[in-house]
């Protein structure tokens, strides 16, 4: 048996007997994730409430459109964005919603065939809320036509830039990257602490270092053990999230019957989680190696947890970056953007490739750091 497998199997055996690892990596995802899924709608509602209190940025195409929403503009519910706009401006966040009337609007109105078009992005909370505000203003405004029986009021056409298949997974797309980010650190945290700082504290590291395998072999075994614990935790997170969304709380979070999560999506998501976990496992192992004791290692790992978990929370609010290639170069963010885009079924092949290459590079860097630390006398015998 190769030495790194010997190390790996021993570390996994020890982890399976460690109550802290069992609790954090395995039990917590099963128990806590459904609660988070249930709590997620409350967060979404808070965000929506805040958006209702801010004026919505509306772009107007056609002078007649301005008359239709004049009341809303005057009351400050809506705010006009001047200049030429396009649908891309909604996705980039410059505009929340577009109200367009055709050039022959007046002729159509007299003919009783007029229609106004509301363009929005149902995936963007700010755009979805802006559309609701605009519709309310429009409905009030169009009531005037009811008092003029000779003319039929114009119809309102809604155009959602998010395709139907995207909206089905929107909750999952907002929730899962955060949960994956959290457990990419939390899942392997105790394992990382145990296999390095724990060995130092117990005085077992020196006994291991005097065995024939190279430091690289020893480190590889430990790294794989941390990675395996992390991946198992993430698998449990994915499983319990899907169970919670399908059977525990499908309606409150608005997950429709169109929830799509096929084998292909699952496979790619696991690949993304693997890349992120490789980076976090390497970093956690490095920090643990640099620590004198278990307690010190735990203190070092808290900032790492924040550095990874906060982007997990932020990606849904930075969704316009998701379409930019440079976003797939940023460590941690690249995997989380990819996971979100994947769940929305808008992940582009070149973005996946870019994310894979950069993540592999970052993970290799983290492992090299751990190897460097493990090769240093002053780190290994730091007392």
């Amino acid at each position, binding site marked *: *048996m190769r*030495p790194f497998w*010997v*190390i790996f199997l*021993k570390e996994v*055996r*020890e982890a399976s*007997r*460690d109550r802290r690892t069992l609790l954090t990596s395995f039990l917590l995802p099963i128990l806590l994730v459904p609660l988070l899924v249930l709590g997620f709608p409350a967060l979404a509602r808070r965000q929506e409430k805040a958006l209702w209190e801010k004026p919505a940025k509306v772009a107007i195409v056609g002078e007649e459109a301005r008359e239709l929403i004049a009341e809303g503009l005057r009351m400050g519910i809506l705010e006009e964005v001047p200049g030429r706009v396009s649908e891309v401006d909604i996705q980039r966040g410059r505009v929340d919603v577009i109200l367009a009337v055709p050039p022959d609007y007046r002729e159509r109105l007299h003919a009783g065939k007029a229609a106004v078009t509301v363009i929005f992005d149902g995936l963007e909370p700010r755009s979805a809320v802006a559309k609701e505000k605009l519709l309310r203003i429009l409905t009030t405004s169009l009531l005037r036509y009811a008092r003029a029986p000779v003319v039929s009021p114009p119809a309102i056409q809604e155009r959602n830039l998010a395709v139907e298949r995207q909206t089905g997974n929107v909750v999952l797309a907002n929730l899962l990257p955060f949960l994956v980010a959290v457990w990419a650190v939390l899942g392997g945290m105790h394992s990382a602490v145990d296999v390095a700082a724990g060995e130092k504290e*117990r*005085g*077992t590291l*020196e*006994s*291991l*270092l*005097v*065995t*024939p*395998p*190279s430091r690289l072999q020893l480190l590889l075994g430990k790294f794989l053990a941390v990675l395996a614990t992390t991946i198992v935790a993430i698998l449990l997170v994915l499983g319990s999230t899907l169970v919670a969304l399908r059977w525990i709380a499908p309606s409150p979070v608005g997950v429709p019957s169109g929830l799509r999560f096929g084998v292909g999506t699952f496979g790619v998501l696991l690949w993304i989680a693997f890349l992120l976990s490789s980076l976090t496992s390497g970093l956690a192992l490095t920090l643990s190696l640099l620590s004198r004791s278990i307690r010190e290692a735990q203190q070092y790992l808290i900032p790492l947890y924040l550095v990874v978990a906060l982007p997990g929370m932020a990606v849904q609010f930075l969704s316009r970056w998701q379409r930019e290639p440079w976003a797939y170069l940023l460590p941690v963010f690249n995997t989380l953007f990819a996971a979100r885009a994947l769940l929305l079924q808008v992940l582009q092949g070149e973005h996946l490739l870019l994310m894979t290459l950069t993540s592999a590079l970052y993970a290799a860097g983290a492992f090299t750091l751990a190897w460097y630390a493990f090769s240093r*006398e*002053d780190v*290994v*015998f730091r007392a």
Partner: protein
Amino acid sequence: MMHEAITVEGLSKWFGRFPAVRNLSFTCARGEVLGLLGPNGAGKTTTLRILATVLRPTSGVARVLGYDVVRQAREVRRSIGVLTEHSGLYGRLTPRELLWYFGRLYGLPEEVLAKRVAFLLETLDLGEVADKPAEGLSRGTRQKVALARALVHNPPVLLLDEPTFGLDVFAARQVREFIRQFREEGRAILLSTHLMEEAERLCDRVAILNHGRLIALGTLEELRRASGLGRLEEIFLRAVGDDPAEPSSQNREMDTCGDLPTGNAPGRKG
């Protein structure tokens, strides 16, 4: 077959500007117990760690069975069994699992390892606790498990750092018996200790270190003859001075060999 199992020549180790070991030379033969004596910070553990290949010497040469500890570290590690100062065990593993783990790391074939584990558990009287988690074992039993771990690959050279530290009288006595037995088996044993009585009972020769330097080396008889003192403790105190933290004038004299031998000829067991 070469007689010397361990050869150290002009060995030095500096940690930054601190000299932990300075120009150390000695040898240890097969079937010999060489005691490394010295106060805390004398360089005993550093010397053992260099020989165990986990620290690189700043200068000088150290060889185990002819293998250089820097250039042939893997061969050295295959030849040595090490009992470290803090012989911690993996608390969630049983002694049997621990021996299998280390045996596999030493690359022993499964059938050989199975026999070796059974032999060690029986020889060190660990049969009853073989399948109990190590975290529940007494200190003495844990030390025996640590010894078994150091012996799992049947090494010809043993580096033992304070093997009886913290043990009760009975456990310490049992460990000393094992060390004698290992010597009878022809192993070379480098034993670091600060217990004079233990050194007197176990060691064929004694090397006294202070401030990283070798200040005396020889059989007990040679040291007694040279110093005119009877007990090792008296010889030791004269060698290191009353305050080992600061070299006394007498100690400085010892640093330049003084009246005690620092010869390198391997002594024979008595």
